[in-house]
């Protein structure tokens, strides 16, 4: 069994620095962002730059018969128009599989696919040039239904067939277990297309260096992998392509794939001038990937006492037109399709298929969101069939350290599933709604003034979520950081240098906190992230604080060693007899410094670069899906309390309470921010957020009609951080960004089910779904 003691406050007492690990120092970007002064990628500017724009396919599926750029080139102010044949290097790119054309040459597979790019002296001129490019298409019937795609209907979209990946997991013997089950439930759950809905649109500025190379300033999640793909498409040595992270206005997985990158560089290199590209909001909706819509069939068998006997799950994710990360999203969805429960007999088949819908890829939770929604819905259904308390059912089956995952891996870190649920269950419920005089903002419909309490019923729902942290499946994931220490104005100062992408999660602040804790130096500067230093990996998979935190910690240890060696030489003793404190080098246990840092360093800079690796993993096998694929797991649980207007189908979430194992809260305020934000995104998926795609066309590509929760939709949150130190991570921390997105959605939908007695098999839940007398198309039942 893993460690069980809860260190909650004790851990924080260990902090040696007032602004070190475990504290919440003000973030350097926060005041700028609040005041509207933070420079996002869309604010990039350099004198003499041109503006790039993209010609996109208006069809979900068509052959390209010809592209006429003559009229566009004739417009005054238009510098160049480029098509597929102008791509200097590889004509296809992709984060995992290079199957997406830089510019479509012979066919388009989705509405919005880039076909040509233009550069002009003004964004308005560029816009007109885009309209002036004539593309002749032979329109074909699109394949937009994932079931039809899986069934092999029509011409395959991808030459290799329409199945991007089939993940097969076999654990125990489901066929035999079926006969032992006393109760069996079967249900299908569907989820819609969620957009990352980051506020900062895709943007970047490419600047030619005059000797054939290029500098690209861009909002991204992983600049090194971006560089790999950009260099390949440009036909350049990676050393000729330098990426610098620009201000990122949110990412949530939507910036794992390239957007403006290659296009801006192609235009800039062709013209020998800087080129800026910045999508508008409508373009942004097809300029990045969305969360995969899912259809998940769950069959659960249990004994009357609630013990799960077997679990059989079939998942179908619509991956859209190109591969992106579909193959690992479906793997991640499949790994956790049986939920955070110990089940001896499990059969999971996960499919990701191609369609002519816009590409789907990474989004916070990465497949585990859809899986969690389905299994947690099924668990409430099972509790109903058993006439058993839904939390009791979960606790009875909750996975524990020492249990096996369906992939055969032993859970070896903390797995405090029962603690999370027990805590939530013990919290008092929010007070009842007053009979009259309630503030409209606390009622379903809000300021719309749709109810004063009429037809409002309350419900409570729970959900438990689990996912792997970090890269899984045999990837040797690394992060690199350099820490240097010198003296400025008589005081020691430190600088941290890494390529870790700050997407708003707070990695900049955390890097400085680690240096303060490790070296006791107050003044820490975190350099802008670029590709001149080694890879830091992606701000994805809830891995960045773990991986880059580990790299910074390692670099600090290297620096400390060198400082102590110097001091030891000067003092004529062994470095092992010395310690580094905020005041200088001391003998351990004695307060007074023997020699100050400024003295030791003089005019020198001491630096150390460290490359952090996580523990090795392995891929799962193709036959039974077995393997030790994961480095760690994170768990979160939510309790939602909702009020539903059963006549109008409107909802007010009254309270969201959550408990999450964070290992160690490196920056408690940032951790709480992640949890509140992730929970809000989960609320959005439960109630509001859906990219409506009809026959391959996005119908609501704006924030007017793609609705994300506002402050009047998000309830007050009750957040409880559990700090069970993780054995393998720096400071015992665990990844925190994704887990809240998992359990928030099903907790809310379970609360809606509890309030209304309806099945609610689909998210987002629409008003018509909540009105017993209406069908989903609005017609009477």
């Amino acid at each position, binding site marked *: 069994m893993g460690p069980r003691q809860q260190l909650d406050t004790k851990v924080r007492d260990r902090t040696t620095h007032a602004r070190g690990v475990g504290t919440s120092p003000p973030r350097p970007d926060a005041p700028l962002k609040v005041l509207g002064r933070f420079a996002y990628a869309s604010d990039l500017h350099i004198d003499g730059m041109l503006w790039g724009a993209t010609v996109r396919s208006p069809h979900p599926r068509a052959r390209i018969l010809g592209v006429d750029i003559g009229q566009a080139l004739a417009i005054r102010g238009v510098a160049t128009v480029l098509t597929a044949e102008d791509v200097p290097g590889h004509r296809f790119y992709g984060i995992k599989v290079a199957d997406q054309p830089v510019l479509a040459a012979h066919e388009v597979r989705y509405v919005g696919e880039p076909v040509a790019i233009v550069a002009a002296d003004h964004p308005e001129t560029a816009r007109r040039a885009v309209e002036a490019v004539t593309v002749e298409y032979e329109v074909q019937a699109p394949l937009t239904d994932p079931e039809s795609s899986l069934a092999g209907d029509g011409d395959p979209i991808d030459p290799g067939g329409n199945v991007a990946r089939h993940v097969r997991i076999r654990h125990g013997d489901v066929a035999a277990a079926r006969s032992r089950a006393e109760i069996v439930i079967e249900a299908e759950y569907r989820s819609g297309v969620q957009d990352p809905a980051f506020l900062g649109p895709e943007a970047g500025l490419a600047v030619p260096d005059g000797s054939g190379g290029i500098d690209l300033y861009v909002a991204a999640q992983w600049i090194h992998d971006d560089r790999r793909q950009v260099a390949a498409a440009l036909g350049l040595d990676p050393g000729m392509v330098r990426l610098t992270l620009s201000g990122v206005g949110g990412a949530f997985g939507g910036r794992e794939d390239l957007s403006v990158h290659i296009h801006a560089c192609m235009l800039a290199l062709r013209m020998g001038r800087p080129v800026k590209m910045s999508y508008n909001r409508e373009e942004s909706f097809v300029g990045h990937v969305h969360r995969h819509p899912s259809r998940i069939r769950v069959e659960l068998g249990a004994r009357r006492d609630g013990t799960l006997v077997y679990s059989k799950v079939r998942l179908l994710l619509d991956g859209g037109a190109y591969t992106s990360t579909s193959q690992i999203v479906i793997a991640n969805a499949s790994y956790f399709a049986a939920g955070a429960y110990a089940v001896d007999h499990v059969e999971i088949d996960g499919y990701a298929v191609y369609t002519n819908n816009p590409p789907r890829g990474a989004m916070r939770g990465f497949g585990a969101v859809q899986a969690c929604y389905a299994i947690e819905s099924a668990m409430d259904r099972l509790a109903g069939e058993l006439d058993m308390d839904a939390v009791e059912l979960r606790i009875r089956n909750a996975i524990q350290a020492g249990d096996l995952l369906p992939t055969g891996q032993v859970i070896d870190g903390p797995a405090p599933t029962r603690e999370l649920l027990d805590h939530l269950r013990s919290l008092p419920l929010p007070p009842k709604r007053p009979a009259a005089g309630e503030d409209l903002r606390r009622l379903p*419909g809000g300021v719309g003034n749709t109810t004063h309490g009429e037809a409002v019923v309350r419900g409570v729902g729970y959900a438990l979520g689990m996912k792997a942290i970090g890269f899984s499946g045999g990837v040797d994931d690394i992060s690199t950081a350099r820490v240097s220490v010198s003296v400025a104005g008589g005081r020691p100062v430190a600088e941290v240098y890494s390529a870790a992408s700050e997407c708003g999660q707070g990695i900049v602040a955390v890097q400085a906190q680690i240096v303060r804790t490790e070296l006791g130096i107050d003044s820490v500067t975190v350099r802008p992230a670029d590709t001149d230093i080694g890879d830091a990996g992606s701000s994805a998979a809830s891995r960045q604080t773990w991986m880059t935190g580990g790299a910074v910690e390692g670099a600090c240890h290297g620096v400390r060693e060198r400082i102590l060696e110097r001091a030891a030489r000067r003092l004529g003793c062994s470095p092992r007899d010395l310690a580094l404190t905020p005041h200088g080098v001391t003998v351990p246990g004695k307060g007074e410094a023997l020699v100050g840092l400024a003295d030791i360093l003089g005019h020198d800079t001491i630096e150390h670069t460290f490359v952090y690796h996580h523990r090795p993993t392995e891929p799962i096998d193709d036959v039974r899906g077995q393997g030790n694929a994961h480095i760690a797991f994170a768990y979160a649980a939510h309790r939602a309390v909702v009020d539903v207007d059963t006549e109008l189908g*409107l909802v007010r979430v009254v309270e969201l309470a959550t408990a999450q194992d964070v290992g160690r809260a490196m920056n408690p305020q940032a951790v709480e921010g992640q949890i509140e934000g992730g929970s809000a995104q989960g609320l959005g998926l439960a109630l509001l957020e859906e990219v409506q795609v009809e026959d391959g066309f996005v119908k609501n590509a704006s924030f007017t009609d793609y*609705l994300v929760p506002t402050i009047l939709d998000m309830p007050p949150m009750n957040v409880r951080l559990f700090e069970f130190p993780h054995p393998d991570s720096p400071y015992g921390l665990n990844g925190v960004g994704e887990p809240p997105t998992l359990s928030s959605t099903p907790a809310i939908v379970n609360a809606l089910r509890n309030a209304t007695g309806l099945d609610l098999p689909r998210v987002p839940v629409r008003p018509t779904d909540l009105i017993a007398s209406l069908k989903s198309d609005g017609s009477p039942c």
Partner: protein
Amino acid sequence: MDYLRPRTWQDAVALKTENPAAVPINGGTDLMVEIKFAGRRPACLLDLSHLQVLKGWRKSNGTVELGAGVTYTDVLEHLGGDLPALAIASRTVGSPQIRNRGTIAGNLATASPAGDAHPPLLATGATVRVESMRGVRDVPVGRFFTGPKQNVLEPDELIRAVLVPAARGPQQFSKVGTRNAMVIAVVSFALAFDIPSRHVGTGIGSAAPTPIEAADATAYLEQELDRGGYWEEHRDLPAGTVDGFAERVAAAARPINDVRGPAGYRVHALRVMARRTLRWAWSALETDGTHAH
């Protein structure tokens, strides 16, 4: 794109005659979105946002005259007593920033079927005062809208003011959006009682090509109130009367299916909102005798 910035209202009217294609801009909360997002490119903008003369309101002879520059925030903060339905509707508009800039007159000019101000203006029998070099004319709101995003304004005309009768009875407004704030109406409904004239007014938004009144419903309700002597004595309304009114409101709708919701839901929701707003308004009358006479 040309940009005209008149010094005075008179100049603005003259410029509109000289440049009939000029698109007026005040708060810009509709127009700027169309320019930035929908790629609309007006040949010429006529900026009215700085004209102080449009920003005021005054009440005379029981009518509140709202200058064309009066914002939702103005109505919400200062006019809730005289224009309660319009104030409730103003509160549902966008975000505080949108409410600070967006104007009632701009809502009329855009003439979206979903405009939040329209149902209360219809229910209260408001009038739009329009002006050109040819003179001034007053158009009842009920005759102002001619189609989706279309109105009776001639190319040389500008909205000068909106005249709204001050409330002489309870009023209500209700708007369904999928989100609890900052949302375009899926469907909306306004109800206004004018007690002295024994008149009921209604307005429906987002359920027809233009904002509409539910004339059958108001006629029915007035008749029921007359027949039962309810104007004299504010007793509980019979459920049948409330349902009869709600059915007729729902029957007035001619909604479409779109990304914001199916037509059937809009009709269903209208029925519920009509029932609820009628009960709320009537109970205000029961508990508050000030509107009785």
